[in-house]
């Protein structure tokens, strides 16, 4: 897959990581009392605190890993070594060379076909000769 598409996918993945990490944390956070006099009663909402801490760690690790990958991909971008004008000039040049090479190729093919005819003729005579002799 070409590098630009990979880069675009990596950026989208980063955004997805942002969203999913926030989502995960808010969904699974345990209940917290709003007022010191009103204690929390239900206990089976969300995850226990230490498990949440672990997952927060993992998510942070994921995000930083993705950032590193993004950086590596950016470094590997195919270089912008030429300006667009230079590129267009190269393309025209190459088009001309291609046309010339096609002409030469067709000449060689014609030559080879003629030679092939000659050779098949010679082979046929040899074969006749062989059959006459035997």
């Amino acid at each position: 897959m070409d590098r630009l598409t990979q880069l675009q996918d990596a950026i989208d993945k980063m955004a997805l990581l942002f969203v999913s990490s926030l989502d995960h944390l808010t969904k699974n956070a345990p209940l917290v009392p709003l007022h010191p006099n009103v204690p929390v009663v239900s206990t089976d909402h969300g995850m226990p605190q230490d498990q949440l801490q672990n997952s927060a760690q993992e998510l942070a690790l994921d995000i930083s890993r993705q950032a590193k990958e993004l950086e590596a991909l950016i470094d590997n971008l195919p270089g912008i070594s030429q300006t667009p004008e230079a590129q267009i000039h190269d393309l025209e040049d190459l088009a001309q060379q291609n046309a010339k090479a096609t002409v030469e190729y067709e000449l060689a093919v014609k030559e080879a076909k003629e030679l092939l005819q000659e050779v098949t003729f010679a082979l046929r005579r040899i074969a006749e000769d062989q059959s006459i002799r035997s």
Partner: protein
Amino acid sequence: MEDPSTQQQGAAFPAPPYYFQRYTQPNLALLEKAKSDPTNPELTTALDALPFPILALEPPPPIKRGICWMFGRPWPVQDTLATLAEQGIEQLYPKGDIDRVKELKKLSHSAVFNFLDLVHVLSTSPSEFATKVDHIRVIFINMHHILNEYRPHQARETLRLMMNDQLNRKRKETAALRKTCVDLRKQLAGLRALEQDRLVIPAGATASDSNQDVDMAPATPAASKSTAEVEAEANGSAIGGSTSTTTKNAETMSRMMQLCDTIE
């Protein structure tokens, strides 16, 4: 019987657009006359009687500017990438020529920092999240826009590489063909030299035989070779020589067939 509306609903395909009824023979004749001679007064009265402009019978000209609608979506006629300012997004990287690698890295770092800010805001005063989310959105849009601007360049690069490939392949094949031709020519020359040697041996070749040679042989000397060998057999003097020629013939035949295969 069913009335036409229910018939329409039951039909397998939709009806053609209503203006197919305009294409009558008199109307088409009017069109021809209008194209050749637009200022004729009786023509204009006849044209005014029609419920549609006469030029509507011609196919419409192709669209050159602006937007055209296709399959329910608008497509720009000139396919260009809209700049960020046109899309209403603030451009965070400098205008003009930029070093894409550096700018992209800066943007990715600031994306992560902004995320950190967002988490901070959410933990302190959650109702103020909107500005940070907007910042992150702008950063991502900028990054994608830099990449989109890079696409035409990449397309030209790819085209250049492909053309280079094609060129090299053609040149290689031309060289291979030429080499095979040279080899074959050498083989043929060798064969001709061989039968020239054979012609020397039957010294008693009669005039009739040489006439036969002239009649039969177009370009190949193979014909003269066959008569020479028949002569040699009849004489019985060069039988050993002729068997060696047979084996040489078989060899050259197999080699020539190989070379023919490479040409084809």
